[in-house]
């Protein structure tokens, strides 16, 4: 790394804002996707929007690739460093700049930890609705990058439903304050587009979010099932009957056993094949009515031994197993491949059964814990990364499950994003024309392709990755013989990840 650049960065962010030594750099080698990683050349931790802008200007002049990073809890390698690149971490920017209870909004720095916002809002009877499982550690900026969800986004929506404005620094270091007084964006909805862009367009430094009133009553139900299929069928019918709980989560037998053997022990019956965890919130009357209807559906599909809790302490106990599920899986195997796919909610049963079959055939341990209400599957495959053959079987199973979900009308990711892990699979979900337009939009922000290169979009043309044409191309309406060149190059010639 150029010493003059290091000096300039040091002048800007100070000693505490710069990491150059190998040992500390190695802690930034990967995020939650441990399969792929490499140390960055440098880590910069700006303390403000102005510092971020200054840092990005210097890095732009130096032509260096940049990888933005929140807490590094992402699961698809979105924060994995690139060769010779600089990680810009927002973890020093964690202030709540404003919290207005009357306006039900908060303006926060991007490095604020998700749960800290809800804690700060609670005394005013408000909370921040997106609640990823990692909310004790993940940052609001990271949530913006991934349009993060969580169990309760079933009712309240993912991050994009709750963000009102952003302060955004583009790759050249220019600051754009996208906060505006209007309810709707004046002009194009840049904020909506930047949310979920996985750090490929620039860096978000401040976020203005809507806060939601805490519900009057929340009741948690835990139903036990003798088979996973019954739990899935309950969810499908609850959706069809428009029963609208605020969360609908399923845990399968292996997950239950792992949880019950761990410090997250929640009293789930270890002999059960599945448990369904439901939150119902609203007024006392609404909760009573919806709960009664849900109990009928549970009963119809073989659910039994229903435990109910409205008291906060008891509810926390029922949820403890779900919240600790990922941590508990360390008891099954040293490594965990956390898959993330979405299926139409009418097809939950068949795809969960398919995933189970795929893993069984490959002698892999599959633990299902997922946001069933949204059709968001998380088939988690437990493995040991030192076993090369097991790694191969894990990746093969992951790809088969993902392909089946897409073929059933689903998608590659419900909340973890595409990152490094699924970028090539984008060709199974989209045609080359769709991807070309995405490339063009990306280039509008980052023409040099320095921001999180090699993430989100495939680095090679789909025809190289997928010899069979995508079903959606060529489009019957497209006048292909006279088709002009795409607006942006189809192949990312950026830095290899």
């Amino acid at each position: 790394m150029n010493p003059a650049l290091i000096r300039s960065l040091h002048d800007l962010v100070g000693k505490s804002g710069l990491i150059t030594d190998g040992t500390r750099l190695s802690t930034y080698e990967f995020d939650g996707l441990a399969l792929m990683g490499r140390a960055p050349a440098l880590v910069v931790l700006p303390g403000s929007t102005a510092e971020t802008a200054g840092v990005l200007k210097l890095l732009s002049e130096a032509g260096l690739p940049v990888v933005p990073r929140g807490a590094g809890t992402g699961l698809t390698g979105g924060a994995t460093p690139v060769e010779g690149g600089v990680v810009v971490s927002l973890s020093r920017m964690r202030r709540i700049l404003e919290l207005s209870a009357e306006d039900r909004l908060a303006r926060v720095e991007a490095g604020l930890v998700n749960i800290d916002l809800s804690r700060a809002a609670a005394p005013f009877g408000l909370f921040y609705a997106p609640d990823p499982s990692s909310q004790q550690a993940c940052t609001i900026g990271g949530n913006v990058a991934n349009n993060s969800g969580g169990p309760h986004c079933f009712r309240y929506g993912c991050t994009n439903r709750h963000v009102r404005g952003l302060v955004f620094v583009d790759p050249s270091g220019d600051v754009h304050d996208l906060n505006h007084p209007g309810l709707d964006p004046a002009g194009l909805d840049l904020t909506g587009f930047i949310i979920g862009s996985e750090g490929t367009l620039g860096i978000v430094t401040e976020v203005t979010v809507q806060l939601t009133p805490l519900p009057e009553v929340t009741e948690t139900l835990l139903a036990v099932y003798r088979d996973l299929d019954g739990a899935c069928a309950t969810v499908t019918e609850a959706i069809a009957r428009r029963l609208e709980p605020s969360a609908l989560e399923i845990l399968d037998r292996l997950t239950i056993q792992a949880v019950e053997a761990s410090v997250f022990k929640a009293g789930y019956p270890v002999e059960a094949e599945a448990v369904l965890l439901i939150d119902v919130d609203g007024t006392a009357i609404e909760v009573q009515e919806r709960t009664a209807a849900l109990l009928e559906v549970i009963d119809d599909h073989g659910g039994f031994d229903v435990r109910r809790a409205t008291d906060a302490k008891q509810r926390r106990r029922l949820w403890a197993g779900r919240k600790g599920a990922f941590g508990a899986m360390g008891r099954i195997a040293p490594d965990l491949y956390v898959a993330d796919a979405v299926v139409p909610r009418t097809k939950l049963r068949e795809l969960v059964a398919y995933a189970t079959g795929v893993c069984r055939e490959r002698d892999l341990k599959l633990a299902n814990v997922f946001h069933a209400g949204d059709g968001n599957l998380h088939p988690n495959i437990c493995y040991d990364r030192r076993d090369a053959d097991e790694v191969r079987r894990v990746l093969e199973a992951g790809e088969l499950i993902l392909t089946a979900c897409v073929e059933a009308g689903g998608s590659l990711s419900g909340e973890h994003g595409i990152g490094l892990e699924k970028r090539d699979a984008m060709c199974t979900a989209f045609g080359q024309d769709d991807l070309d337009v995405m490339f063009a939009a990306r280039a509008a922000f980052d023409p040099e392709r320095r921001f999180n290169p090699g993430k989100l979009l495939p680095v090679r043309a789909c025809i190289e990755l997928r010899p069979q044409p995508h079903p959606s191309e060529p489009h019957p309406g497209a006048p292909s013989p006279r088709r002009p060149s795409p607006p942006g190059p189809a192949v990312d010639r950026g830095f290899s990840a």
Partner: protein
Amino acid sequence: MSRAFELCSRVLGLSPRLVRLPDGRELPCVAPNSEGQAAEILHLARAEGLVVLPRGNASRLAWAPLPKRVDLLLSTEHLAGVIAHEPGDGTITALAGTPWSELAVTAARSGHALAPDVPHPASSTLGGVLSVGVHGPDRFTNGPARDHVLGMRVLLGDGRAARSGGRLVKNVTGYDLHKLFVGAHGTLGLIVEATLRLLPAPAERALIEARFTDSGAAFAKAKQLRDEVPNVRTLCLDAVNDVLTLTLELAGSARSVAASLDLAAARLENARLLSGTAARIEAEQRRDRTHDPRSTFIELDVRPSRALAAWRQLRLALSRIEERGRLHAEPALARLTAVCPELDGDDVRSIHSSLTAEGLAPRFRDLAPELGRALNPEPPGAKLMRSLERALDPHSVFPKGRLIADRVEEPAR
């Protein structure tokens, strides 16, 4: 005969008709019968250097300033119909020209509702609603249109189709290009198909209203109702002369609406109550009055904590002109609207200057294009928006200068 007219007839065998824009211009309007035909038109437009303005039912075409140059209107009237209604999954997919009312009727068959509750749904199309980014009186509960769009298929300026999102209620695969097309007023491409999330239809709706003569008391009551009464679907204030009517619409299950109605009635003196069909009809009439398509209207968004002060400023600004218009406020959202049937340019300038002098940022809808361009401020992020316009429509087949000032007077060829 214009070049556009001739090309559509001669090359494509379509018969364009002449249509008058709200600013008086007469233009050829062509209505393709298929997506393929629409793609051919765009391909031809690009080759011939024509500027094409997408058109739904034209009821909100002038909500963003009309472009200086348009050669051809491309109507989606024949690109209509529901493609997939999936009650079990809570989604509906339709072509852009589908009337919003048809979508709503289809959704209702499975006990679902659409959001937003669009004013004048029979004369609004799916593509038009999304392109304009319309919102309805249910916004406080259900949010704006963009929150309900799950995926989209668009045609770009060279006739290529592009897709983003999908037909799933949760999905973070790839860039959300559809977010850019909602509210883009046809400047980036032609929306041909979209998927929306459906909401459970409320079993019961009820309306309660009370009158106030003091705006301070009315806004304070609105805040109290927002904070203390559940099941609020709409909370609004309407001013006629010096009387303010506060209306609260409740929606939910029959028992919960009844309980909320009791809570609201206990907080309002001399309240008038409506329930069942009467409440629904009254709510629909009120909804349609908020968006009178023949009027200029002024939108003023502030934070809820500043709503009363802004309301007073808006009344003051309007008191300086002869035609005071109709004032409408959604205090929980802090959107204030003035619907003014007969404003001339001087009136508009006067209102604009008195509001901006107070630090407020009014937006004007349905103004003459030049006035609209002059008074609606450059939005934050305009530089990035221009980059996106160039990236997605490099040949300026779709009109520019509607949301942000033109980067060049004539489209680059």
